[in-house]
């Protein structure tokens, strides 16, 4: 769907806490999802991805959960550090082929602030 709004959701946590960032996606035909981290003045950086045939995937300190029933995606960051402070975007890829192959549609983003 369209990205809307000038007021990004925000999440503030203390260093060492676990963080959960949520994302609602729009297309039930999406078959691949990806989380990006964007620090100020930089381009988005890959964190973790998951295919629609999975419910959970773990990386280093990060876990992505996918609930296709309610079209919801979450990113869990364990032991959050000040360096994790950034804007986090989820993106979805439709299973359509042709010119839509590989096309990612980005969500609104969430600002994560980690306090020392």
């Amino acid at each position, binding site marked *: 769907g369209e990205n809307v709004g000038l007021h990004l959701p925000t999440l503030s946590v203390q260093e060492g806490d676990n963080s959960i960032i949520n994302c609602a996606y729009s297309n039930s035909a999406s078959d691949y999802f*990806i989380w990006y981290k964007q620090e100020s003045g930089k381009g988005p950086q890959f964190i973790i*991805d998951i295919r629609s045939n999975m419910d959970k995937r773990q990386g280093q300190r990060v876990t992505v959960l996918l609930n296709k029933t309610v079209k919801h995606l979450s990113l869990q960051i364990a032991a959050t550090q000040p360096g994790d402070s950034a804007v986090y975007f989820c993106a979805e890829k439709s299973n359509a082929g042709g010119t839509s*192959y590989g096309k990612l549609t980005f*969500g609104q*983003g969430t600002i994560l602030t980690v306090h020392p």
Partner: protein
Amino acid sequence: EAGVAQSPRYKIIEKRQSVAFWCNPISGHATLYWYQQILGQGPKLLIQFQNNGVVDDSQLPKDRFSAERLKGVDSTLKIQPAKLEDSAVYLCASRLGNSYEQYFGPGTRLTVT
């Protein structure tokens, strides 16, 4: 491996002027994307290239925006003439054929006054 390179990093122009952005993707990445990211929003796809051919330009405002990738490597995005609402970060990304992951450059921050 070197990442996606973009230049310039910052550009300030007056409305109705022209501007061009340059992108050098990761070596070997056949697919190249240009995105527009307005402050407070996620990246919005403008155009997608596969080698030197346009795959998707459905969201490119073609009356003022143009892009090319003549030799299937570097790409340029041009705006002519610029409007105030074009103020944004313009991101270039590239992708290897066997993966959906897109690698982003640092972006060019455009301010139109």
